[in-house]
């Protein structure tokens, strides 16, 4: 009789203990653990900022400016624009004769240089931005 009761109690325990659900650890248990073990899949984005223009380029640019300035002060150059196609803007025709544009060769050099560097800059910025948003 008592043995029977014991068996019955065992059967009850199996059922009743399984009914009590397992306790759950914190929601970020696995993430915390993987972080501790340093095997986290999610790589922390290391944003190492690299300057767009490196030190070497700055040195080269600086040297070029110094040479140009030095040349302007020391040297005795006369600017001649013999490679540029002659531009004969007939301003009389366009503006009715009240405006005449005289384009100096210095202005022209400056303008061409600016345009050149603008395109170069666009190219470099585009590549730089592309690299930043590329996901491997």
């Amino acid at each position, binding site marked *: 009789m*008592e043995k029977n*009761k*014991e068996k*019955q*109690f*065992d*059967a*009850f*325990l*199996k059922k*009743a*203990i*399984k*009914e*009590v659900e*397992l*306790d*759950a*650890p*914190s929601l970020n*248990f*696995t993430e*915390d*653990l*993987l972080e*501790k*073990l340093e*095997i986290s*899949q999610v790589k922390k984005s290391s944003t190492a900022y690299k300057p767009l223009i490196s030190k070497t380029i700055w040195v080269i640019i600086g040297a070029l400016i110094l040479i140009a300035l030095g040349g302007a002060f020391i040297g005795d150059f006369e600017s001649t624009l013999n490679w540029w196609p002659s531009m004969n803007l007939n301003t009389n025709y366009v503006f009715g004769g009240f405006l005449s544009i005289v384009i100096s060769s210095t202005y022209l050099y400056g303008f061409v240089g600016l345009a050149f560097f603008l395109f170069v800059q666009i190219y470099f910025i585009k590549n730089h931005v592309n690299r930043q948003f590329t996901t491997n």
Partner: protein
Amino acid sequence: MNQDQQYIQRVINGENHVFSLLVDKYKHMVFTLALRMVKSKEEAEEVSQDTFIRVYNSLDKFKGESKFSTWLYRITYNKSLDCLKKQKRTIDSFSVDGYDDMNFPDMENIINGIERKERKIEMAKVLKELSPDDNTLITLFYYEDLSLAEISEVMGISPNTAKVKLFRSRNRLAELLKEKLEPEFIQGYGKK
């Protein structure tokens, strides 16, 4: 090779992230075992984390002679014991004597008299009152269906000792259930 061993092999071969699959599979059981021993959620969380760190660092030493879960529960049990020792809390808070002879409660009456939901709540309360060792034995035997040999491996005792301990743990549980459930059943019965 079972699924656990496949995961372990992959981790050993360098696929470290596979370890998270093992963690997700066993974290609830490990946490429950730890919580039923140390009785505090914060400490149980710490014990569980320490357990998995230990497991990860000794994966290559796991020979696969026993089940992975048995090995894992053994580490959980030992880590929980360490935690209790640190707090100088006793592991077996009940006296060993006095539970050898037991009148088992008449479960048929209790099962029929108490709602399932209520039974679940009361059982959870009773489990909280059990000592760490009793809780481990009861959870591993009745919830995880581990054999006495496996329990003895987890707790580092002989299968015979495990049998005796389990018998006493069950008696203590019966005593606590009797105290908790029978008056409610009698009250509920009286109202009908």
